[in-house]
């Protein structure tokens, strides 16, 4: 008995002495630990300039704090399964009522300035994110239906998240990256939000930026280049399967290149290592360079669809024009309009064959969420004509457009944002196809902000007929938009009267809430399937098609993902597991 006690005590001590490591799974990379080389620089380009080093005021998807921290927190997703696994937490436990998750924080993790990473860091980070006056982009993450999610420190290495109700997104909330309390805390206590907002601007000296992630800022030249170097503290607890500290790279350089043609030129010249060509022209130039032996690189065409949508939405709130309003509110009409959308032509003409047709609100890349059984209402002009005839549009007027018994013609305006050539092309295809069945569509390209203003206007009479636009964002845990599905949602674009008008909207609203609060993934997917069935009947939005993701990289890089997980969601590689072969 005594022996066992000492053994346990010795083990516990050993645990304290060495950092509790996170071993990066071998299945996340194609490279074996034995072939890996250390050192070297990964060179990349980004389209937009960086605006701040401050994690609390950054608003762009591509930002410095996310890059240096790796954007990782207590839990991360396993790209091979999509599951949440402990990361900066060593383990977690969910309470019986599923309202509390308690995380045991990994011991031995350090900030780049040598201070330990503890529960206080998460608490302070959460406090600042949820301070209204700071204006953090993550603010909304910490509220469910306006009720706050709270964090409680149990001890230095234990932290509890308390949710106002069960939430499918619970782990995503817990995945936020912590920032050092010993740096931000004193300023926050002294000067509050205003003090925080003045910290870590682009003028801050790189050596003062403390990171808990894989990278440290070495230098930054505005509009030009961000150079990052390996954070040695990170390697103390992040190891590969053979126990080597990560990342393998010494440096990570990101050039700011605003023009995609120039990015392509840099890739073709071998000056950057990774690139995702998005147009047919760029893809063929990369392919040609590879085939002619001018560039030693790998290109994966059509690796997956991108996580975005393009759709046409009709306005249900047109009190000033009851004829149009009743038309737009008719699901037969919308179904007919879905039948006139030639999605294959959109893929072929707009995306040069490198796109994917869309039929539901779930992005095609989220394969496990797509209900394969829902009706698609594919391109079928005869079916469209039949549905319109059922609505009473049988005769044609002198110009060849359908009219009803009272002589009212089916005609509507279709708008999209000027300058988005892909959407403009989609709109023109729709105009042509609609004409074939006798529907007059007047296309107008208008300013983006005007378009958004019209789309988001509310009340009984809104100033548009139909709009083509797209959305991005939306998670793997619950891919339905919190602003989109509920009838009161700000992005419930077809009907902004403030209430559900169709019983199926009410059903969707209820299913949305049920799914959001369901913790069992399988059950949640079932609810998602059900929602797609109702969406298909109601067709509030007519989905069109989206482009595909085509990653390319210079063959001096190793350590990319296995083919099965290369996608627009998981990307082509984990930077930590990337190495330079030559």
């Amino acid at each position, binding site marked *: 008995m005594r022996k066992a006690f000492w053994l346990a005590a010795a083990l516990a001590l050993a645990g304290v002495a060495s950092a509790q490591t996170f071993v990066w799974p071998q299945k996340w990379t194609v490279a074996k630990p034995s072939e890996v080389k250390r050192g070297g620089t990964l060179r990349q380009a980004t389209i937009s300039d960086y605006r*701040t080093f401050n994690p609390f005021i950054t608003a762009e998807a591509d930002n410095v704090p996310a890059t240096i921290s790796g954007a990782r927190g207590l839990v991360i997703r396993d790209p091979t399964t999509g599951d949440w696994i402990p990361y900066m937490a060593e383990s977690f436990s969910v309470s019986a009522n599923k309202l509390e998750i308690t995380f045991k924080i990994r011991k031995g993790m350090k900030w780049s300035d040598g201070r330990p990473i503890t529960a206080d860091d998460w608490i302070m980070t959460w406090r600042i994110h949820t301070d209204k*006056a700071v*204006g953090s982009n993550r603010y909304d993450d910490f509220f469910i239906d306006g009720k706050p999610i709270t964090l409680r420190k149990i001890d230095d290495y234990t932290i509890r998240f308390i949710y106002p109700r069960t939430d499918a997104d619970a782990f995503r909330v817990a995945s936020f990256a912590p920032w050092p309390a010993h740096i931000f805390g004193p300023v926050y206590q002294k000067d509050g939000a205003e003090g925080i907002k003045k910290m870590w601007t682009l003028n801050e000296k790189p050596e003062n930026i403390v990171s808990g992630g894989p990278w440290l800022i070495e230098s930054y030249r505005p*509009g*030009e280049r961000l150079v990052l170097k390996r954070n040695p503290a990170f390697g103390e607890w992040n190891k590969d399967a053979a126990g080597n500290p990560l990342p393998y790279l010494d440096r990570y350089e990101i050039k700011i290149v*605003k023009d995609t043609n120039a990015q392509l*030129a840099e890739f073709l010249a071998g000056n950057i290592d990774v690139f995702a060509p998005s147009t047919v022209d760029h893809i063929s130039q990369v392919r040609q*360079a590879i085939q002619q032996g001018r560039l030693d690189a790998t290109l994966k065409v059509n690796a997956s669809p991108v996580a975005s949508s393009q759709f046409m939405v009709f306005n249900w709130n047109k009190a000033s024009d009851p004829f149009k309003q009743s038309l737009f509110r008719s699901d037969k009409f919308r179904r007919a309009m879905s039948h006139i959308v030639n999605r294959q032509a959109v893929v072929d003409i707009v995306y040069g064959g490198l796109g994917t047709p869309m039929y539901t609100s779930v992005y095609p890349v989220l394969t496990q969420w797509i209900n394969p059984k829902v009706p698609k209402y594919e391109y079928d002009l005869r079916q469209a004509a039949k549905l319109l005839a059922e609505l009473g549009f049988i005769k044609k007027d002198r110009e060849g457009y359908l009219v009803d018994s009272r002589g009212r013609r089916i005609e509507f305006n279709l708008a999209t944002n000027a300058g988005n050539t892909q959407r403009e092309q989609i709109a023109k295809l729709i105009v042509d196809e609609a004409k074939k069945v006798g529907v007059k569509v007047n296309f107008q390209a208008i300013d*983006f902000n*005007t378009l958004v203003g019209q789309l988001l206007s509310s009340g009984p009479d809104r100033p548009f007929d139909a709009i083509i636009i797209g959305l991005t964002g939306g998670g793997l845990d619950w891919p339905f938009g919190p602003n989109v599905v509920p009838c009161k949602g700000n992005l419930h674009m077809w009907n902004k009267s403030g209430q559900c008008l169709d019983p199926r909207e009410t059903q969707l609203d209820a299913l949305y809430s049920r799914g959001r609060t369901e913790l069992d993934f399988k059950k949640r997917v079932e609810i998602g399937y059900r929602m797609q069935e109702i969406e298909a009947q109601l067709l509030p939005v007519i989905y069109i098609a989206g482009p595909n993701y085509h990653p390319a990289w210079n063959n001096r890089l190793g350590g990319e993902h296995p083919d099965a997980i290369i996608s627009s969601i998981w990307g082509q590689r984990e930077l930590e597991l990337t190495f330079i072969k030559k």
Partner: protein
Amino acid sequence: MTAYILRRILYLIPTFFGATFLAFLIIQLAPGDYLTQRELDPKVTPETIARLRAQFGLDRPIYEQYLLWMNNLLHLNLGYSFAFQAPVLEVIWPRVVNSMVIVIPSTLLLYLVAIPIGVYGAVRQYSLGDRILSFLAYIGLSVPSFFLALIAIYVLLQIKFRTGTLIFPVSGMTSSGFEQMPPLRQILDIAWHAVVPVLVATANDIAGLSRLMRGQMLEVLGQDYIRTARAKGLAERVVLYKHAFRNAVIPFVATLGGLLPSLISGAGFVEVVMAWPGITPFFLDAIANQDLYVIAGFLTVSLVLLMIGNLISDLLLAWVDPRIRYE
């Protein structure tokens, strides 16, 4: 003269207020604001948008926003960038400096090349050389600079594919590892990166300016006093350079003041295409984002420089042209 200058400076004050208000009004008349794009994010609630709008002061009436901004301006504060959450001057100044690396050499090159070409064209009118230069000038005038930059990138890549070396960089202002270089190498590195953008930025303008110079020179050469000078038996060189050239160049001297605002306004699309971290891509970003005070602040600085530049131009004109006197 002093009275004239003082009067001109006095006139600048109402012009300044009128122009800034107009600029502010026009920016504000554009639909939407800095937060419009964020409204399309399915995760951001309308309450958050409204809160941020209040925080940035975007919910207040335009005249109130203008007065607040003007008040700041009188304290020499150009305002605050929404996107950078930093003072406008702090974020735009490094970009202006970067642009000057292209603009200053390109302006010098422009005058050094365009004026002799123009003079040559006028003196040897309709000669083979004049025809070739005219032809090139028309091409230069018709090809937009961004396209010229793309062609330059293409040519550089083709050379790289054939010889394996990049004679000039395809984009950017510095090489990797710039920070570790000794100062002299840093200067050389920037110069090496600047060659192509400077040439591209100059190419268009050379065409226009040389045509103007040619026209001016031709006009002067047709004047009576040139005929008189020649009749007097003066050497052709003296006729051309002492009499004709000095008069033909007057309009150009007078425009030197106008160069002042162009010093800070960047080299245009060449910067975007060749990833030069100048003011143009930055300003385009600010417009796309409707980063109000960056746009307004930059316009104000340009405006002030334009007004000063105009004043200098007028004074220069009086100085070089004896026919003009301000009293």
